[in-house]
């Protein structure tokens, strides 16, 4: 389909938590900030399983997935990246927010995560990053089709 260079539709973002932890204050605050910036946010309960997240991203046709991890669930993110690839969703951009030790951040980036946000991250930075990643994703998705 036609080439697009910028957002062709409101950015659609999935805000979710995988693994075992249930603390969701961070994901809720980020979801609300994204909504207030005009984005459409699909919000899930915690404890999503990785195949479920891929299925959900596919059905909802989201541009960006934000994974919140306060415990150690970020260790599962590389598996999520593989699952997205398997589902043909390489164009979907993934960011991780929460408590990620420095020595493990690189593993996430190597696995294809676009950006890791730490506690105290500037909300405007998060929103801006998501918006620009959404633009890229829509571009890439259009090319893929």
């Amino acid at each position: 389909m036609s080439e697009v260079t910028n957002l062709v539709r409101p950015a659609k973002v999935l805000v979710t938590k995988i693994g075992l932890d249930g603390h969701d204050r961070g994901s809720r605050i980020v979801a609300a900030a994204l909504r207030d910036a005009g984005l459409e946010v699909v919000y899930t309960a915690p404890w999503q399983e990785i195949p479920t997240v891929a299925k959900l991203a596919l059905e909802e046709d989201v541009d960006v997935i934000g994974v919140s991890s306060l415990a150690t669930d970020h260790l599962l993110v590389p598996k999520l990246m593989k699952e997205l690839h398997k589902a043909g969703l390489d164009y979907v951009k993934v960011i991780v927010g929460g408590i990620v030790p420095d020595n493990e951040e690189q593993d996430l980036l190597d696995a294809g995560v676009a950006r890791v946000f730490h506690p105290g991250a500037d909300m405007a930075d998060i929103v801006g990053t998501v918006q620009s990643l959404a633009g890229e994703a829509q571009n890439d998705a259009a090319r893929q089709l």
Partner: protein
Amino acid sequence: MPRNEQLALPGFDDWQAAYDKQLPDGKTVRNRSGIEVQPMYTPADWDGNQYEDKLGYPGTAPFTRGIYPTMHRGRTWSQRQLIGLGIPKQYNERLHRMLKAGTSAISMIPCNSIYRGLDADQCDPLILGTCGTIINTVDDMETCLDGIPIDEISTALNDPLPFTMLAQVLTVAERRQIPWTKISGTANQSDYISHFVANHMFYRLALPGSRRVLLDHIEFAREKVPNWNPMSVVGQHMQQAGATPAEAMAFTLSTAIQNTEDCLSRGMDLEDVLTRFTFFFDISVSFFEEVAKFRAGRRIWARIVRDRFGISSEKAQRFKFHGQTSGVDLTRQQPLNNIARVTAQAIAGIFGGLQSLHTDSFDEVLSTPTEDAARIAIATQNILREEAHLTDVIDPLGGSYYIERLTDQMEEEIVALMEKIDDLGGMYKAVESGWVQGKIGASAMAFQDRITHGDETIVGVNAYQVDSEVELPVKPLDRPAPEDIEAFIENLAKYKRNRDQDAVDRALDDLGDIANDNKRNTFEGVVNASRAGATQSETIAVLRAELGFGQPLVVA
């Protein structure tokens, strides 16, 4: 209560004039609970003639100054560091080290998989044992407690209902021929309402089932484990989730009222049950507000027990609480600064009159706490007690015009919220409808906005940033060794092969029957299942099948 002009002293107006002149654009300051804070307080703000009514003496109603006559002079707070890591053997080794370092009570945090009701063979091994100890069977519990005198030391279990960990501890006691009457401690995570509202982590059974299983547990404990505190009402989760200090106190007290009413409708002896109620709170870095929160909470609870439930026993009116320094206040930026934050939080808790204290490790915001950092957290408590002499005087802030005025104002704010919850039909109904969740969500957003707009300064986050971070003196955390986890899973398989499967099946079938028979006690069935050799996951699965799988109500 407005300022009492009759008590105003002549010099006040002169001071006010000088203040206004020098600070013409002085802005309004509010604490986290939204209460306006004045630049100075005088006798006009708090009438010392109210002393007997409002404060009294430590150990007597209304307990504003503390619940025991001797407070920290007689018995210092318990140093209860929450720990749990890796596999049972590692937990046991660390526990022995911590006891040596000065920890005076045990706590046990299981792996997140256990909160979800999953055994090690049902999870991704990658995240097993990264946040707590994997304890699936009574054998695991036995390893955790190896060499620990459980008849002499109190145990706090992070054990949400249906309390499989307590069942395992009781089974270990049986194996060691220790009578259950000697088991003491607290079910830290028995407050299903706070889990439904604010910490979904611990939420395991649907609301009505949760309500029943909690009451079964309280009834069982009062009958058979008399030194166990079966009810810990938790405000910590709600404040961590974003509730203001006043909201957290109000929601906690309303939850305690709900539980008390539920115990009453079961026909329990309230005086007996209430002596075993404990509370668990977050201590934020908003120093005076936290002190006032705890003082007000003590006063309100004593009044509720006396007037609302008609219990005159002062023992039942005592508001015993554990405090944990707030992890939400800690920052990733300049992480060593967190030691200062934790210190301020801990002082607020101590001045607030707590009975036990967990101080967060400064690296909690970076990873699961490392052992070195946990040691600093314990040392902080020791320094405050031994070197700073914080325990020399009981309620040392009592009588401060500011603290007394603020205590009154916090009390008004808390009581108003509690009345609203009464209007909604009580806490159970208020959380079922999502009202409480909505309040907490709104407060979390409002606080975030204050940070974003610079109305709230967070050192190193929106002010005082530095270019280069200090190198951390502690090593990054090691994740559990994959071979340890693998061995644990193999061991679990072996455990299942070697147990008397018929006995397990019978115990689990019986647990299912109990769940469908309101006259029988579910916790009895949980203990039987543990004794027969069922894993925690198998036990929880039966109750979930019969009583419903808990899904928290998420108010987006």
